[in-house]
């Protein structure tokens, strides 16, 4: 699955605007993640997850920077994120289900 030229251009244009508020957006994204999907908090027992916490802001920035790197290397996102992929797989050992953009869980009961 690859991005078309038009899609890449759209991503780069939008990211230019996002980058100006990266820290705020990063922190709010994490806040929303933990709110909608509380199970993701299991990976951050060592964090202060209260709204506006320094750790949340710091981590949000980290995540946004990584996405920014991917955008900068939009022709080789896999290569750009290879080290992060290894980190998440072998050191952090985050279940890959958490990287999915959409979640459709079929619950019974």
């Amino acid at each position: 699955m690859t991005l078309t030229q038009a899609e890449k251009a759209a991503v780069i244009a939008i990211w230019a605007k996002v980058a100006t508020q990266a820290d705020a957006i990063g922190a709010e994204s994490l806040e929303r993640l933990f709110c909608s999907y509380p199970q993701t908090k299991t990976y951050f027992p060592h964090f202060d997850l209260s709204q506006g916490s320094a750790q949340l802001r710091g981590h949000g920035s980290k995540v946004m920077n990584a996405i920014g790197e991917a955008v900068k290397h939009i022709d080789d996102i896999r290569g750009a994120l290879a080290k992060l992929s290894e980190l998440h797989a072998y050191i952090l050992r985050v279940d890959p289900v958490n990287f999915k953009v959409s979640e459709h869980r079929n619950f019974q009961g």
Partner: protein
Amino acid sequence: MVHWSAEEKQLITSLWGKVNVEECGAEALARLLIVYPWTQRFFDNFGNLSSPTAIIGNPKVRAHGKKVLTSFGEAVKNLDNLKATYSKLSELHCEKLHVDPENFRLLGDILIIVLAAHFAKDFTPACQATWQKLVGVVAHALAYKYH
């Protein structure tokens, strides 16, 4: 609340009656740690998990596998009351153990594979369908108290 037909209950309890909880539990946990190696993150104090052979032979893995599957037996005994049955365990896995509930789904699928390997033709499609439903509902109950 989950609805179980008489046939489903029969398929669950009759198969469960033939399960060696210690062996199946050990195998299920070992397979989880081997096939999905990131699940080892919860077991840094289990000693040698460096290879499939090491994992399969690891006594702590075997003991914990037995513990987990024994707890699964509670589901079989309380099919009409799963959320209440797993309420405390759900809180424990969230608040103390910090386990991503995705792990419950992974283990459920592993259990299906272990049952299929053990029971072969006796693990009929109807049997599998019922057990797929059961592991899904157990995973849901274990995730229910997450906050």
